[in-house]
């Protein structure tokens, strides 16, 4: 939580198949930055994606709520929950489907975090999906995506 201890809002970090190593690193960084900015942040992911995070953060120094991806989709679809900010990791067709679905279902601001070797092709396929796109090509070096996320988060924090 930030120094004022007043929640700035709610954030969601949505993870797909963890075959791209950047995803886990960038997700943990994103959760950390959102928490520092005062957002109560939930991570939704597949079992493997969740396990990668939970094993890396056993005392929950960074993670708050961690939930199943399909459960999360169900809650947002049924309007039981929504989030002010939603970051959806995208590196394949399924990621496009999840980000397009969140953009359609959520009242919050949705960002597609596009990673992987096919990031440019994925970005081209997402033309017309009403969400912000954050792209950093590559699968192993998290620093380009970190820099992109820093830029977005600075804007989010200064405009909240």
């Amino acid at each position, binding site marked *: 939580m930030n120094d004022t201890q007043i929640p700035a809002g709610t954030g969601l970090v949505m993870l*797909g*198949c963890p*075959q791209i190593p950047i995803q886990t690193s960038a997700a943990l960084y994103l959760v950390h930055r959102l928490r520092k900015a005062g957002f109560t942040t939930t991570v939704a992911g*597949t079992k*493997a*994606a969740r396990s990668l995070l939970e094993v890396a953060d056993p005392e929950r120094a960074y993670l708050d709520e961690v939930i199943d*991806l*399909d459960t999360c*989709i*169900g809650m*947002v*679809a*049924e309007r039981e929950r929504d989030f002010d900010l939603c970051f959806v990791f995208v590196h*394949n*067709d*399924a*990621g*496009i*489907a*999840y980000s*397009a*679905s969140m953009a*359609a*279902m959520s009242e919050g601001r949705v960002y597609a975090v596009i990673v992987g070797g096919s990031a440019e092709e994925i970005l081209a396929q997402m033309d017309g*999906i009403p969400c912000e796109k954050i792209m950093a090509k590559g699968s192993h070096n998290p620093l380009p995506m970190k820099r992109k996320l820093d830029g977005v988060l600075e804007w989010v924090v200064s405009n909240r």
Partner: protein
Amino acid sequence: MKYEILERQVSFREAAEYVRKHMPERYEVPPGYRMCDIHIIGVPPILIGVEGTTLVFPFTKPCHGTFLLRLESAEETEHLRKAGKRV
């Protein structure tokens, strides 16, 4: 949910093309549409095909991409005919 897999690793466009080509009745549903206790996701408009009580629809799994599934359900067909937008 008892289903048959018609196609694996298809794009949303390919899934929609299959439904347009092979299914006589077609309905658009929004992402999150609930069917057989699952929420259908995808790039809108999501197209579901109907023939009698047979449904054909895209189903996306994070690690496996999008499948095109065929399902028999009188109940879900009836619900879709009421809730979906016929196109």
